[in-house]
């Protein structure tokens, strides 16, 4: 009969053996854990990022600096608890060198302590609250921050004949951010907020709120609602005749995501938003990107896709720079200060905050070739995140 210790030894060996094998293979392969929501309300974010990463790897091959890249896709269904568990599994079991993705802010924050302890870079490709990069020295962001677009539209509106604004923002953290940064910059520029409404997040009908906006007679409505609700908002805005009353729509560009724009119908025409990416961005690089993405997935890329595309590019370039060294400290050091041309325009990683520095564009929704596009007409160059608490 086996003794207890012998059993333990046998079981231990059985458990360790497969890891020894993977460790040997891992010499050449660099694994990247991609954690995004592929199901649930935010699934379009995850799908866009996944698509963009796959597209990039098709275009650029799966080998960098002599090392093979392997992306492991995990679905967290937008639940931060899942994100944390998946990140832990990826780091401990799969020995990934980088974790990436993160559809919403709480997800990115949930993984932050793991990135710090395991010294694994966390590349944030979607989530947009300013505090994220402050939570771990291993977090690098390739998406955007809400403060970047909200402050710019506030400045622009104050300088371009908009004096009175009514705000309609969803009652959750990103909505509060969007409102706060806009208000700061708009009122500093001499503008006045005449009406401030926070709508419940699960809100079936905008009618009463819009009626209130209409009666306040502002020059423009500043709106921030979660991506899916933008269409319903614009439809009811037009139905209620706010467009004819001369009330314009302004906001950060999330509302006019390329992903949803065509579904909104002509009522969206004329909306002015500030954002980091438009599928209509007039550069050769973007035209190629949009064409390739459309060919591969039969739909238009949105800003989430670009965040993913740039994120994987950043990881590739960092590996190239370190000559294939994939430990966290070398990678993050290589990523800091990196500059490149993205489909959205020139971008770089701020060496101090590890956050993205990029152009913010003022765009207007117009109809081109029967489709709606955000057409950029003013550029604010090299915008850093204005929302950091430690300046």
């Amino acid at each position, binding site marked *: 009969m086996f003794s207890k210790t012998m059993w333990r030894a046998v079981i231990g060996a059985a458990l360790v053996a497969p890891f020894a094998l993977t460790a040997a293979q891992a010499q050449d392969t660099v694994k990247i854990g991609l954690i995004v929501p592929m*199901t*649930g*309300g*935010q*699934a*379009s974010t995850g799908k866009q990022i996944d698509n963009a990463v796959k597209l990039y790897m098709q275009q650029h091959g799966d080998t960098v600096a002599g090392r093979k890249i392997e992306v492991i896709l995990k679905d967290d269904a937008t639940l931060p608890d899942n994100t944390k568990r998946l990140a832990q599994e990826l780091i401990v079991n799969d020995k990934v060198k980088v974790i990436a993705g993160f559809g919403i802010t709480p997800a990115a924050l949930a993984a932050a302590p793991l990135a710090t302890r395991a010294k694994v870079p966390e590349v944030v490709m979607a989530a947009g609250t300013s505090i994220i990069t402050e939570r771990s020295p291993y977090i690098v962001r390739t998406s955007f921050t809400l403060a970047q677009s909200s402050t710019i539209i506030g400045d622009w509106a104050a300088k371009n004949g908009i004096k009175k604004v009514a705000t309609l923002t969803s009652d959750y953290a990103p909505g509060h951010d969007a409102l706060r940064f806009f208000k700061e910059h708009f009122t500093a520029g001499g503008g006045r907020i005449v009406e401030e*409404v*926070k*709508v*419940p997040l*699960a*809100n*079936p*009908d905008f*009618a*009463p*709120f819009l*009626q*209130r906006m209409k*009666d306040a007679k502002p020059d423009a409505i500043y709106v921030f609602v979660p*991506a*899916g*609700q933008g*269409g*319903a908002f614009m*439809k*009811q805005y*037009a*139905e*209620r*005749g706010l467009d004819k009353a001369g009330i314009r729509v302004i906001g950060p560009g999330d509302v006019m995501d390329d*992903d*949803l724009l065509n*579904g*909104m*119908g002509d009522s969206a025409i004329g909306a002015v938003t500030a954002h980091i990416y438009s599928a209509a961005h007039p550069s050769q690089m973007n035209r190629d990107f949009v064409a390739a993405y459309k060919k591969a997935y039969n739909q238009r890329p949105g800003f989430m896709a670009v965040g993913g595309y740039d994120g994987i590019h950043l990881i590739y370039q960092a590996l190239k720079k370190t000559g294939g060294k994939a430990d966290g400290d070398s990678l993050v050091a290589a990523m800091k200060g990196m500059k490149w041309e993205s489909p959205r325009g020139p971008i770089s990683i701020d060496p101090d905050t590890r956050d993205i520095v990029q152009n913010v564009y003022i765009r207007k929704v117009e109809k081109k070739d029967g489709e709606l596009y955000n057409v950029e007409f003013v550029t604010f160059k090299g915008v850093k995140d204005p929302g950091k608490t430690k300046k």
Partner: protein
Amino acid sequence: MTTLFTILFDGVAYGMLLFVLACGLAVTLGLMNFVNLAHGAFAMAGGYVCAVLVNRSGVPFFAALPAAFLASAAIGLVAERLLYRHLYRRSPLDQVLFTIGLVFMAVTVADYLMGSSQTFIHIPDSLQGQINVFGVGVGRYRLMIIVICGLLTLALQLILMKTRFGSRLRAAVDDPRAAGGLGINVPYVFALTFAFGSGLAGLGGALGAEILGLDPYFPLKFMIYFLIVVTVGGASTITGPFLAALLLGIADVAGKYYVPKLGAFVIYTVMIVILIWKPHGLFGRTAAR
């Protein structure tokens, strides 16, 4: 003053919409004593059928509405024959567990087939915008909802009270054994009723997509609203849920307009107050069977 009328009008339209969406549930819950939490799934199915027909196949909106009704009714009929009828005699807990499972399946299926983002139905230009009636802004689409839903309510009431089918249904509900003994085909009556209720939900889903939005989470998001309408109205008549839906619609819209900070709570406050005052709903039969 004109604003007050606009608010009232919007509230009535919203309430009517809630009624069409929820009255199928009032029938299954109140008349057939079956807790069908999956009711919203039939509404969603109708909405998506309408969206696919209008957006992809170019069917006119008004032709797609009956199609949405028929499609949901057909799905309801199949579901009733295959699944629901086995649960009529089971405990309410079994029914709740079964139907909530159906909801989750419906959410995933819709997500898989239609994608997770909001779907919009391209409504004709003639239904867009507002018209001015004595200075009161009246949305055309909402006006259409009021007309359609108002007619439906009348028709429902007449069918239930004046036709032979209505009396058979009431008989089958009150005492299935006696009704069966009198030669009424009870399972057939139940199946038809269930299908009709599902069809109404489908129609509501198609009509409501413009105002409530349409995505795979529709059945979960609005389940609470349907239940409020049925519980507040009392689940034994058609007029009860109808008046409850109107009351809630107006309270919701007016609350959001006049006290936007409390907006979302008004509808729940109204529900709690009414249920404390009348636990069986506004028009509920006090003696529950």
